[in-house]
């Protein structure tokens, strides 16, 4: 540019600087708003996808806020749910030491609300309720037998309920099914339901093979399903040496006797005289 040839060296425009500045400010606001409108549905759909991917738990309700206290609630909102849950698990340990079952139950309730997808919290909470708390009452000699049975039984049912809730949140987690089956087996002596739960656990991804054996063992003790159990045990026996544990052999033998299987058709080799 050659200013000498151009006597009007100053930039020509009709707009005053004030007007230009105000226009730019208006443009800034407009860009922000348009961007806000544009991203609204996009972010909404991302939020949906995040929920589908289980990356984002549902909102926290007022009850959680009251239980957590302001600071922890804020932390949980700000992306620190996992951390708050971890610290609650330390708190739960103290409550266990102090045998404060009421607080312990509510703490696990909070932990699992913060992180419903951490199966470990469900498993541990149920264990505290169905085993530790129930045993505390069942073995408490200061109480009358009736009260002991009542309270002990109530905590076993709480543990069962807790696991069921955990399974609803983590249907693919075999360990929770396994623990539920164990409660039916160990605490209720309900072999039929234990067998069903073990069987479901065995079908889930990552489940160890012993789940199938446990399902068959429990079925063997379930009134009316002996034939089914026998077939399952025989099948496992046939699959290979790895299933031929002492318990399996014993259950097979018991059933063969109980069902009066002819010697020739028995799976187990004949015992020596």
């Amino acid at each position, binding site marked *: 540019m050659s200013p000498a040839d151009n006597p009007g060296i100053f930039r020509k425009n009709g707009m005053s600087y004030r007007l230009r500045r105000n226009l730019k400010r208006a443009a800034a606001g407009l860009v922000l708003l348009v961007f806000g409108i544009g991203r609204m549905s996009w972010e909404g759909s991302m*939020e949906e996808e995040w929920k589908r991917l289980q990356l984002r738990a549902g909102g926290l309700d007022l009850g959680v806020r009251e239980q957590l206290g302001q600071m922890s609630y804020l932390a949980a909102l700000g992306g*620190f749910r996992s951390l708050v849950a971890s610290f609650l698990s330390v708190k739960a340990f103290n409550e266990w030491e102090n045998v404060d079952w009421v607080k312990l139950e509510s703490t696990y309730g909070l932990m699992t609300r913060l992180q419903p997808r951490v199966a470990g919290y469900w498993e541990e909470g149920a264990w505290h309720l169905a085993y530790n708390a129930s045993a505390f009452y069942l073995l408490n000699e200061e109480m009358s037998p009736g009260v002991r049975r009542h309270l002990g039984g109530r905590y076993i049912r709480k543990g069962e309920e807790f696991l069921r809730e955990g399974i609803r949140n983590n249907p693919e987690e075999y360990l929770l099914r396994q623990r539920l089956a164990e409660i039916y087996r160990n605490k209720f002596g309900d072999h039929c339901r234990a067998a069903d739960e073990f069987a479901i656990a065995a079908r889930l991804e990552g489940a160890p093979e012993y789940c199938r054996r446990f399902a068959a063992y429990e079925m063997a003790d379930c009134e009316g399903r002996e034939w089914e159990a026998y077939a399952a045990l025989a099948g496992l026996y046939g699959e290979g040496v790895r299933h031929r544990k002492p318990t399996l052999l014993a259950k097979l033998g018991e059933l063969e006797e109980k069902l009066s299987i002819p010697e020739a058709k028995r799976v187990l080799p004949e015992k020596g005289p």
Partner: protein
Amino acid sequence: MSSREADRKPRVKPGGTVATRRGIGASAGRIGTLAGTTFLQLLRMKTFYFLLIFSILVVVASTFNVLHHTGEQHLKLLKDVALGAMSLFTSLFAIVATALLIPSDLEDRTLQTILAKPVPRYDYILGKLCGVILVVAVSVVVMDLIFGAVLYAREEMMVAAELAGATESGGFAEEDLAVLEERLRSQGLNWNLQNAVAAIFLKSCVICAVTMLVSTIASTSLFTIIVGFVIFFIGHLQSVARDYWMHALDAGLWKRLFSGLVALIFPDFQIFNVVDGVVAGEVIPLGAMTRMAGLTILYVMVYSMVAYLVFADREL
């Protein structure tokens, strides 16, 4: 005069000018220069001390042992503390470091000397932003390395200890031991954790951009930091406002307008909070990460543009 000649013999011609570059390349060069100086500035201000605090925290968390905690819970606690601290530190650092830049340049009149050079104001803003994002990136990488090393070490120790314990107590078949180890390893070091770290970084980029925007309006660092924190806080609740605006059709007009305005103006930081899910074992697919990165780029671009529009006619 070729540049080699200039190299050999410095000369000042009366009224002459040394060869200077122009155009896009020059712009990139300026942004690079500003970013490099900003990086150096934050480095020499010893702002990296917080990395030391982070390391101590992670190491302490890794030795923090609650009696009944299983190996899995132990590793989860370590991940919670480390990733939580990483997320918090990075966000706070992003706000504070960004807030220091423009207001201090303004106060020291350094800004006048910079803009009295042929430096367009958008180059200045982008240079500062790139510099602070570079610092954040380096911090995240360092924290990630520390965290990864500690987690890996603890994981190996836990696996060894639990397997030894199980073998000692007996009654565990090979199969059971394998299950035990696999469950422990699933809580240990894995690539999915890097997705959480990447999300922490992306969130900080948005924080830097929005804080930069605030600092173009503000005249002090303190004001910028306070407003930055308020935005940080509201950004975590933005999705609530968006839900309200989109779905609570029967609510009062003013309430809806207010929530709509919040949803339009504030960024949604919850999108980036995937740490909880990742620690719980949820896998983030590549597509989701890509969308998150895309959203981040959009945020940074739009906030930079708005920052420029505000800053373009600011009186210095």
